[in-house]
């Protein structure tokens, strides 16, 4: 028997004797399936509720700046969805069964997410530009508009946009780290192939 076979035989005996006998919880798996389905549904539901509330509010209010605001919200959501779908094209299924195919797919998904997040900066700029014109329009339409109200409205929107920007840059940094780790894994897989 050669060394290779001997090694594998002795290691296999040790390896296969490691067994944790904790039972598999079928109920736990069912709960997990339900939880994931709920999460997905909840995400869609939140978006739908937000858009519905904005639309109903604008419909009842009837003032042109409020209707314009609602149209802008729909527009931003539509643009974000279209670009998200565009970036995710070709990232739904692996091209094959191998681990390399699986890693490639994961990389494509992370790259698509990164592109989508970077696009978020343009969206943020678009929103800032929109608010620059929209806030004076809304505030000036009110009979009791004062400079303090302008400041308050601008301060509130600036705080929202800054918070959005901080969140976006944190997500971009995290996604870049994930991409770097994936590339590290890929190099780990390729290292042995070079010799083959």
């Amino acid at each position, binding site marked *: 028997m050669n060394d*290779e076979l001997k*090694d*594998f035989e002795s*290691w*296999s005996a*040790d*390896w*296969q*004797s*490691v*067994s*944790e*006998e*904790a039972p*598999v*919880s*079928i109920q*736990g*798996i069912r709960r*997990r*399936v339900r939880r994931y389905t709920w999460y997905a549904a909840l995400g869609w539901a939140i978006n739908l509720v937000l858009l519905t509330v904005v639309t109903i509010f604008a419909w009842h209010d009837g003032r042109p700046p409020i209707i314009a605001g609602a149209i802008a919200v729909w527009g931003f959501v539509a643009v974000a969805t279209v670009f998200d779908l565009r970036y995710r094209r070709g990232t739904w299924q692996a091209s*094959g*069964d*191998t*681990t*390399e*195919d*699986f*890693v490639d797919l*994961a990389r494509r998904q992370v790259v698509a997410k990164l592109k989508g997040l970077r696009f978020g900066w343009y969206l943020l700029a678009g929103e800032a530009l929109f608010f620059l014109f929209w806030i004076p329009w809304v505030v000036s339409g009110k009979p009791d508009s004062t400079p303090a109200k302008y400041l308050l409205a601008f301060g509130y929107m600036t705080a929202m946009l800054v918070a959005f920007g901080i969140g976006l840059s944190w997500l971009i940094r995290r996604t870049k*780290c*994930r991409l770097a*780790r*994936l590339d*590290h*894994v890929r190099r*780990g*897989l*390729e*290292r*042995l*192939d070079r*010799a*083959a």
Partner: protein
Amino acid sequence: MFRTLLGEYGGALRRVAATYEADPTLREDLFQETCLAIWKALPKFRGESTPRTFLFRIAHNRGLSHGWKEGRLPGPLDEPETVVDATPSPEAAADRSQQRARLQEAVRQLPVGARQVLTLRLEGLTFREIAEVTGLTENNVTVRASRARKALKKILESSDR
């Protein structure tokens, strides 16, 4: 079928999870994720491969996915394993248990490609079956297994010193 497969290969799937995650709580989580992935994939299983290779492919891909999301690939062991042994002598049991723990620890330190081929080999799969799981050629698997064996031996020897 799901219950039968898990009854038969549950231990092996847990061992695969252990090669990607040292923390017991996260490992159990990874194992449950693997079971969930199998549950979802089973209706698409057409018997083109054996159930064993089908399950191992899912388990390794799930492990990889967990590994890079948690930033644990390729990484050294976080803490040593505690493995229960049923052999009668306490000294022998301690020795054996330590030996297993060392082996698991050493396997976790291997690069991913080597780790996959080696653990599948340790589970008793033939080179052909490993090729089926990983999608590599048999020749490639043979080369990987040989290099993985050398790397594992080196790690085990260095931990002896």
